[in-house]
């Protein structure tokens, strides 16, 4: 299987302030990764580096076999899509318009949508199960619905990689479960490579296989969630008490 996203001794941070160093990971088609760690450990920094908002301090990122810095903005926009916690805030922006923005890298200079673009937009909404919301004003939706619209935007963008920054934040419990299942379905059926960050440790241990852990002053760790739990890495990184860790082990392994 060819590598979709690969980092080679990647060091991230702002200016000359290193946040996390020596990250070496490889992701293939259909891989789904949960990124965890306390606030300030570098999750957003990693996201911003992957999305080329900031430059890495050292090392490099390969996206679909090529150094990510060698892509033009437009080329990169066709390979990596993002979903943020930030939401569009406009009085008249419709669900259709938001998802249509995902087609930006493909449309002509005035942004006119072709029939193919419109079909992609509808298919994306269908895939996340909110086709009925297509004519609604984005601002009037619930948090869960907004989240799905932003995911539909990323799907319409038609990129092999989708990154989501805390997609389960602000969601109620059933919506969180629904979101996990949606992401897994996207990875499996659409062969998307998905990276998402989350604070819901207990849900992650139950529903995801692969974890990346970031923590302050500790090396970057990646591995199977069950293994990381058994090896005591989760206990170490999150400062969980021994007695509580035994409980976690009993419940999850």
């Amino acid at each position, binding site marked *: 299987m060819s590598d979709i996203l690969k980092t080679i001794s990647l060091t991230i941070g702002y200016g000359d302030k290193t946040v996390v160093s020596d990250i070496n990971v490889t992701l293939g088609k259909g891989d789904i990764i949960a990124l965890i760690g306390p606030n300030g450990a570098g999750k957003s920094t990693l996201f911003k580096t992957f*999305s080329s*908002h900031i430059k890495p301090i050292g090392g490099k990122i390969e996206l679909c076999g090529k150094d990510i810095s060698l892509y*033009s*903005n*437009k080329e*990169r*926009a*066709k390979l*990596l*899509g*993002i979903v*943020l916690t*930030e*939401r*569009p*805030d*406009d*009085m*008249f*922006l*419709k669900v259709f*318009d*938001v998802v249509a*923005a*995902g087609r*930006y*890298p493909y*449309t002509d*200079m*005035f*942004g*006119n949508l072709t029939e193919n673009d419109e079909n992609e937009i509808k298919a994306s909404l269908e895939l996340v199960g909110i086709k009925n919301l297509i004519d609604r004003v984005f*601002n*009037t939706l619930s948090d869960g619905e907004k989240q799905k619209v932003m995911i539909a*935007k990323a799907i319409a*963008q038609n990129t092999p990689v989708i990154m989501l920054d805390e997609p389960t934040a602000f969601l109620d419990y059933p919506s969180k479960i629904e979101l996990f299942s949606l992401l897994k379905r996207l990875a499996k059926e659409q062969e998307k490579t998905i990276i998402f960050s989350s604070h819901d440790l207990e849900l992650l241990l139950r529903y995801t296989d692969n974890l990346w852990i970031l923590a302050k002053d500790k090396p970057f760790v990646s591995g199977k969630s069950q293994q990381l739990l058994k090896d005591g890495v989760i206990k170490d990184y999150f400062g969980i008490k021994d007695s509580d860790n035994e409980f976690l082990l009993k419940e999850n392994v």
Partner: protein
Amino acid sequence: MKNSKVLIGILGIIVLGILLFLLNLFVGSVTIPFGDIVKVLLKENTDNTLNVIIFDYRLPQALTALLAGAALAVAGLLMQTLFRNPLADPSMLGISSGASLGVGLVILLTGAISGAAISSFGWWSTVGVSLAAFIGAVAVLFIMLAFSARMKNMTTLIIIGLMIAYLAGSITDILKFFSLKEDIHAFVIWGMGSFSGVGTSKLLIFSISIIIGLFATFFLSKNLNILLLGEMYAENLGLNIKRNSVIIILLSGYLTAIVTAYCGPIAFVGLAMPHIARFLFKSSDHRLLIPATMLIGMDLTLFCILIARMPGFDGNLPINAVTAFIGAPVVISVIMKSRKQ
């Protein structure tokens, strides 16, 4: 909104604009019968007074007003979308303040240096004032461009723009403090704004410069549309944020600088017109908003000069008093409406 409704809306605004334009030709201190206006326009008229009134006064003023209205309105739309702030307008770039400072320097320093008021220099004074306003506006514009090329954060850019505006304003105030009474009067009059200063001789250059700028804004609609999602999303979708904000500020600043140079600082058009366009068409699509905002801007300014020319005002009512009088209630109603949603 359905396409047919959009078309009807646009047509309605255009018809209203044509009506207001014609009204502007025959309403004023001298009422000219409609038949005579047609004769004048077809050049079949021999009465020279009527020709002068129409061709030297009313027609240039109406054309200036409608172009300035379109330019300021669309400049405001660009600012509001770039800064994602419904209260943004071209003055946020400090451009009007830069123009005021330029004019202030010329008007107030002429008096201090030569000891005579600038109005005593006749024709040179009007050219000098336009030129000074343009240089002041462009100087501030370049300062803002230098900042926008260096930062991705729009909030910091707004703050810098406002600070530059305050800085230019305070220098202007200091100049005023040391100036002759007649000069201050001339400066205050310029600050009230007027669409009658362009006149036939400068109208061609003014029109061409504005039309080029208006035409260029149409090519920004795609980028403006994805900016509505926020800078991070727009960047991920392939937009070069810094280059795009430089282009938007350049275009918005260019239009504002030209209008301010010829007409003085005109308030409220840039702030209020984009809101009317959005609410009228319930849309955020700039492919529609750009032409709609321009057309609504034209209608408003034509309406404003008509009001200013109503019997009793004799065309001397400062245009800024009228634009604000109509613009302010619009802004208030928009804010109240958006709070309810």
